C-alpha cells in the first residue's frame, strides 16, 4: 500500500490554512447540508429524553462521595483542626486534611496551565472557600453530616470587599500569601497613538465613571469530578471545558502517570460558560478524589453544592473611569480609561481593545489595575471581552448623547480598525482575499428595519407612554471574534460494513451544537449523507481539539475537520483505483481499474467515475467488513465467503483501514495578530416605570455577521440565548456580600436572579453572511458575542427613556429610582 498522500494538493491545502490570516483559499463551491435549515442536532434525542449523561450523573459500583469543608469567614487561616469525630462516623471512609503529607506540595490543578496550587489549602481568602478538609463517605449526606462535626480553630484576618479601598495606602492585605506587598497583582497598559495629542485635537471632552457588579456563571451542573483506579490505570470523568488540559495535569499527579494509562471521559457539560472551567483550582477536587480513591480502593465522586458553585465570578466586575475627546461632527479623537478590576486571574485582555481593533479613533489608552479583595477569583465567563464591549458601547452612547446625535450615525462615522478608516480597511480585505463588504452598515440596515429605529428612536426622556411609563431605544455594536490561539487535531475514518464516518477529537460539549456543525462540514466535504457522520467527542482517543471557549470552536476545529475530510476523501479515491494487495493465493484488484483518483468523485456515499457516473460503487460496498468477516479465500484462491453475500456486486474487498488525521494551528487574534472585518449590531427597546424603577425589555434585535452560517440552530441559539443571559447580567444579576461579615448573601437561585421565560420581550435574531471571517468558508465565531455585548446596552436604553445616565450595572429598580431621586 502506498503512503498517504502527504505531498498532495490536499495536504498543501491544510498547510495553506495554518494561521488563517487570510480568506479561506480553498472554499467548497456546493453546499448540501452546510448552512441548510432544519438540520437536526446530533445530541437532540439524548438531551430531550434525559439519556444524556453528565459527570454528576456518573454512578459506579462501590462509589464514594466527597465534600469539602468551607470557610465561614472571608479571610482566615486554620491553626488547628479536630477531625476525629468525623473519622469515627459510620459511613465515613476517608478524611483528607490540609496537613496531610501527601498534600503538602502544590499540584497542577488549573483549567489553564500546569500551575502549582495547594489542592487543600489551610485557609481561606473568601467566605465559602473550600479548604481544610475533604470528607469521603458512602453518601453525600453522610459526608455533609461529617463535615459538621469537624472542629476548626480559625485565625481570622482583616478583610476587604471594595476594590478601590483595597488600593488605598495602608489597606490590609487581602491575599497576603499570593500578593505580600500590595492588593494589586498587576498593572496592564494599552497604548495606541498619543492620547494627550488626541485630547488636544478634540472640540469637547467628556468624562464619566461606570461600574459593573460581581456576577457569575450559574452552571446548571454542579462542579464535580469522578476518579476510579483500575489497577494502575486512572479512569477520570471531568466537568471541564478543557479535557486536554485536565489529562495533562492528571499525568503529573501522584508521582506521574503515563498519559497512555489515563482513561479520560469528558461527558456532556452542564454549562459554566468558561467560568468554572477557567479557575486555577478547578481540578483540585479531582486530585483529592484520586488520592482518596487510592487510599480507599473505591471510586470517588466529589461535588460542590449549589451555593459553592458561586465560587468565583465574571471578570467584568470593577470600577472604570473614562475620558473621551471628540469633535462636533461626532468624530472621536481620543479615549483613555483607567480600570480597577476585581480579582482578575487573567488581567491581560485589556479594557480598550475593541476601540483599537474596531474603530478609526487614533489615540487610545487603557490602564488596568488588577485589585484583589476577599471575594472569589474572577475569570472569563462568556467572556473576557466583556469590559471591552461595555467600554465601546458606553463611549459611543455618551458621545452621541452629548452631541444630541443618533448613536448609529456616530458609530458608522468612527468604524475602522487600528486608527485607520474604512477605505484603508477595505484595501486590507482585498489584499488577503476577502470581499470588501461594509459589514457594519449591512448589520445596521437590517437591525434598524427590524426594530423600526428610524420611527422609534427619539431624544432622551422625550417619549412618555400612556400610564406614565417612559420609552427608550438604544444601539451598540462591535466586531465579531474568535480569539484563542491553539491547535486542533481531528481523526476521521470510515467504519467497516456501512462506511459511516466517525470523527475523533476529545472536546467538551457545552451545548453550542458544534458537533453537528462539524458533521455537516465532514458530510459535505466527503460527499456522504449527514446521518452517516458522528463526532465521538466524549472519549479521549488521543486527538485534542480546541476548547469551546473564546468562540473558537469553528474557527479552529472547523479547519481541522475540513482538512481531515478532504484527506480522507483523497485517500478513499486513491485506494479505490489501486490494486490493494496480492497474496500467494489471490489478488485483490482495483475497484476502478485503469482510472486515476482525479477521475472519481463521491456523492451520496457513492464513488463514481466523473466521465461515466454509471461506473459506480457505494463506499460501503467498497470498504466491506473486517476481521473474521473480511475476505476469505479458498485454497485455489477463489473467494468463497464474501462472494456469497446476496446482492454484492463486488465480492473481493480487502481494503485497508481508511483513516486520516489532520490538524490546524491558529496563533490567535489578540494584540493585532489579524484585522477584524465582521461586525455585530444590537438594538433594544425598553419601557421604564418611573414609580417602581422597573425596566421591561420590549424587544431586542441582534444582528451578527457570522461570515457564513454552518449550523443555523447553533448560530441562532447562541444569539437569542446570549441575549437572554445578557439581559440578566445587565438588569438583575449581582452577587451580594454583607459588608460587616464578608459573608455572601445570595448564593442561590432564589436571590441571585437569572432570567425566566417571562423576563424578556421579543428577541429577533438576524444573521448576516459577508464571508469575511477567518474560519472555514469565511465563517467566524458567535458563541460569546451577544451575551457579552448586550448587558451594558441596558444603560443607554434606560438613559434614552428617562434622560438620566445610570452607569452602575446591573441596572436594578433601586438604581433607577435613585437616579430619578425617588429612592
Amino acid at each position, binding site marked *: 500500500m502506498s503512503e498517504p498522500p502527504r505531498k498532495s494538493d490536499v495536504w498543501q491545502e491544510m498547510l495553506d490554512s495554518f494561521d488563517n490570516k487570510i480568506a479561506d483559499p480553498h472554499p467548497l463551491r456546493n453546499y448540501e447540508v452546510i448552512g441548510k435549515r432544519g438540520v437536526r442536532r446530533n445530541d437532540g434525542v439524548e438531551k430531550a429524553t434525559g439519556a444524556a449523561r453528565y459527570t454528576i450523573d456518573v454512578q459506579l459500583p462501590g462509589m464514594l462521595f466527597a465534600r469539602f469543608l468551607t470557610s465561614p469567614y472571608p479571610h482566615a487561616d486554620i491553626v488547628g483542626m479536630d477531625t476525629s469525630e468525623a473519622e469515627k462516623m459510620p459511613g465515613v471512609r476517608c478524611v483528607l486534611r490540609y496537613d496531610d503529607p501527601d498534600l503538602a506540595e502544590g499540584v497542577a490543578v488549573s483549567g489553564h496551565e500546569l500551575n502549582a496550587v495547594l489542592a487543600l489549602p489551610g485557609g481561606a481568602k473568601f467566605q465559602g472557600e473550600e479548604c481544610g478538609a475533604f470528607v469521603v463517605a458512602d453518601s453525600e449526606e453522610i459526608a455533609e453530616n461529617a463535615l459538621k462535626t469537624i472542629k476548626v480553630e480559625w485565625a481570622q484576618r482583616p478583610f476587604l470587599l471594595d476594590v478601590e479601598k483595597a488600593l488605598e495606602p495602608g489597606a490590609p492585605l487581602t491575599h497576603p500569601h499570593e500578593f505580600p506587598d500590595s492588593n494589586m497583582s498587576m498593572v496592564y497598559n494599552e497604548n495606541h497613538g498619543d492620547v494627550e495629542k488626541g485630547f488636544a485635537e478634540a472640540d469637547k471632552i467628556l468624562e464619566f465613571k461606570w461600574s459593573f457588579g460581581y456576577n457569575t456563571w450559574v452552571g446548571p451542573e454542579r462542579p464535580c469530578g469522578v476518579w476510579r483506579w483500575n489497577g494502575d490505570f486512572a479512569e477520570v470523568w471531568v466537568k471541564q471545558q478543557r479535557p486536554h488540559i485536565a489529562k495533562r495535569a492528571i499525568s503529573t499527579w501522584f508521582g506521574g502517570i503515563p498519559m497512555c494509562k489515563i482513561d479520560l471521559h469528558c461527558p456532556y457539560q452542564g454549562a459554566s460558560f468558561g467560568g468554572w472551567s477557567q479557575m486555577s483550582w478547578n481540578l483540585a477536587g479531582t486530585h483529592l478524589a484520586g488520592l482518596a480513591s487510592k487510599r480507599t480502593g473505591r471510586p470517588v465522586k466529589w461535588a460542590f453544592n449549589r451555593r459553592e458553585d458561586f465560587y468565583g465570578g465574571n471578570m467584568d466586575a470593577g470600577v472604570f473611569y473614562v475620558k473621551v475627546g471628540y469633535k462636533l461632527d461626532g468624530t472621536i479623537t481620543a479615549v483613555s480609561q483607567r480600570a480597577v478590576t476585581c480579582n482578575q486571574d487573567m488581567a491581560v485582555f485589556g479594557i480598550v481593545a475593541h476601540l483599537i481593533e474596531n474603530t478609526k479613533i487614533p489615540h487610545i489608552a487603557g490602564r488596568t489595575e488588577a485589585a484583589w479583595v476577599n471575594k472569589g477569583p474572577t475569570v472569563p465567563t462568556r467572556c473576557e471581552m466583556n469590559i471591552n464591549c461595555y467600554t465601546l458601547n458606553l463611549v459611543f452612547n455618551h458621545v452621541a448623547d452629548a452631541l444630541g446625535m443618533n448613536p448609529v450615525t456616530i458609530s458608522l462615522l468612527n468604524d475602522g480598525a487600528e486608527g485607520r478608516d474604512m477605505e484603508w480597511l477595505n484595501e486590507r480585505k482585498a489584499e488577503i482575499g476577502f470581499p470588501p463588504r461594509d459589514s457594519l452598515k449591512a448589520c445596521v440596515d437590517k437591525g434598524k428595519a*427590524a426594530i423600526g429605529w428610524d420611527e422609534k428612536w427619539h431624544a432622551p426622556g422625550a417619549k412618555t407612554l400612556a400610564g406614565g411609563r417612559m420609552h427608550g431605544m438604544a444601539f451598540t455594536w462591535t466586531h465579531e471574534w474568535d480569539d484563542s490561539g491553539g491547535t486542533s487535531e481531528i481523526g476521521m475514518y470510515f467504519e467497516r460494513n456501512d462506511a459511516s464516518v466517525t470523527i475523533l477529537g476529545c472536546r467538551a460539549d457545552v451545548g453550542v451544537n458544534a458537533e453537528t456543525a462539524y458533521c455537516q462540514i465532514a458530510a459535505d466535504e466527503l460527499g456522504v449523507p449527514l446521518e452517516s457522520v458522528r463526532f465521538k467527542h466524549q472519549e479521549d482517543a488521543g486527538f485534542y481539539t480546541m476548547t469551546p471557549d473564546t468562540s473558537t470552536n469553528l474557527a479552529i476545529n472547523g479547519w481541522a475537520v475540513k482538512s481531515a475530510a478532504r484527506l480522507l476523501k483523497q485517500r478513499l479515491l486513491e485506494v479505490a483505483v489501486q490494486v490493494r494487495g496480492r497474496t500467494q493465493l489471490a489478488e485483490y484488484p482495483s475497484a476502478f481499474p485503469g482510472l486515476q483518483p482525479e477521475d472519481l468523485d463521491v456523492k451520496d456515499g457513492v464513488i463514481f467515475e466523473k466521465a461515466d457516473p454509471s461506473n459506480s460503487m457505494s463506499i460501503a460496498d467498497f470498504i466491506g467488513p473486517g476481521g473474521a468477516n473480511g475476505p476469505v479465500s479458498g485454497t485455489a484462491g477463489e473467494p468463497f465467503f464474501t462472494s456469497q453475500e446476496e446482492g454484492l456486486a463486488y465480492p473481493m474487498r480487502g481494503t485497508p483501514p481508511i483513516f486520516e488525521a489532520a490538524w490546524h494551528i491558529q496563533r490567535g487574534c489578540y494584540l493585532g495578530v489579524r484585522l477584524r472585518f465582521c461586525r455585530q449590531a444590537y438594538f433594544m427597546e425598553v419601557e421604564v416605570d418611573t414609580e417602581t424603577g422597573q425596566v421591561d425589555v420590549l424587544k431586542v434585535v441582534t444582528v451578527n455577521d457570522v461570515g457564513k452560517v454552518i449550523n443555523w440552530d447553533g448560530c441562532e441559539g447562541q444569539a437569542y440565548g446570549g441575549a437572554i443571559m445578557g439581559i440578566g447580567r445587565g438588569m438583575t444579576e449581582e452577587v451580594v456580600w454583607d459588608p460587616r461579615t464578608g459573608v455572601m448573601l445570595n448564593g442561590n437561585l432564589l436571590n441571585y436572579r437569572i432570567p425566566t421565560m417571562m423576563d424578556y420581550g421579543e428577541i429577533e435574531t438576524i444573521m448576516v453572511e459577508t464571508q469575511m471571517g477567518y474560519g472555514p468558508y469565511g465563517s467566524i465565531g458567535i458563541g460569546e458575542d451577544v451575551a457579552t455585548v448586550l448587558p451594558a446596552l441596558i444603560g443607554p436604553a434606560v438613559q434614552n427613556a428617562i434622560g438620566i445616565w445610570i452607569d452602575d450595572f446591573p441596572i436594578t429598580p433601586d438604581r433607577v429610582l435613585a437616579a430619578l431621586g425617588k429612592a
Partner: protein
Amino acid sequence: MEVSISEKEGAKSLDVITLNVNGEVHQLVVEPQWTLQYVLTDKLGLTGTKEFCAEGACGACSVILDGHPVLSCMMLAIECDGGTIETIEGIARANHPLIDAYVKYSCMQCGFCTPGFIVTAKALLDRNPDPTLDEIKEAMVGNLCRCGTYPAHLRAITEAAAVLRGVVSAQGTPASAEGGAGHE
C-alpha cells in the same frame, strides 16, 4: 429492594414505601429525609431528573406525581408513598410528541435543564391541550435555562400540542409561534 449502606449500620430510622414510577412498581427502603429526586436518581438510576438549584427555584427536577407536576427536590420520598410518578424517561418511552418537537426546534443547548422543561410541558398539555403562548409562559416560568433556550420551547410546545390534537402530523408544518429565530 434498595437498602442503604447506612441502614446496615443502624444509623437511621427507615421507612418502606411503594412508588409506581413510569408504570413499574418499586418497593423501597428510604430514610425519612431523602428527597424524591434523590431516590429517583441515586436509588433508581433515573438520572434524567436533574438537580440544578436544589431548593425549588428552577424546575430541573420536575416530575409528574399523581397527575400534577411537582419539584422532586422539594418532596420527601416518604410523602410520595403509594404515588404514581412519571419521569422524563417514562415520557420518552411513551414517545410523547414533545420529544420530537424539542429535537426539531433545538430547544436544548447544554441540555441539563431540558428534561425538566419537557416534564413541565407534558403536565401542561395533559391539562390544557391547546395552550396560548401566555399560558405556556405561565406554566413554564418556573423552569430555568441558563443557556437561554426559552424562545425555542414556545415553538416546540405549541407544535407538540397541535400534534396531540391531531391538527398537524409529527412531520407536519411548523405551528406558528413567537420565538427567536429571525431570518435573513
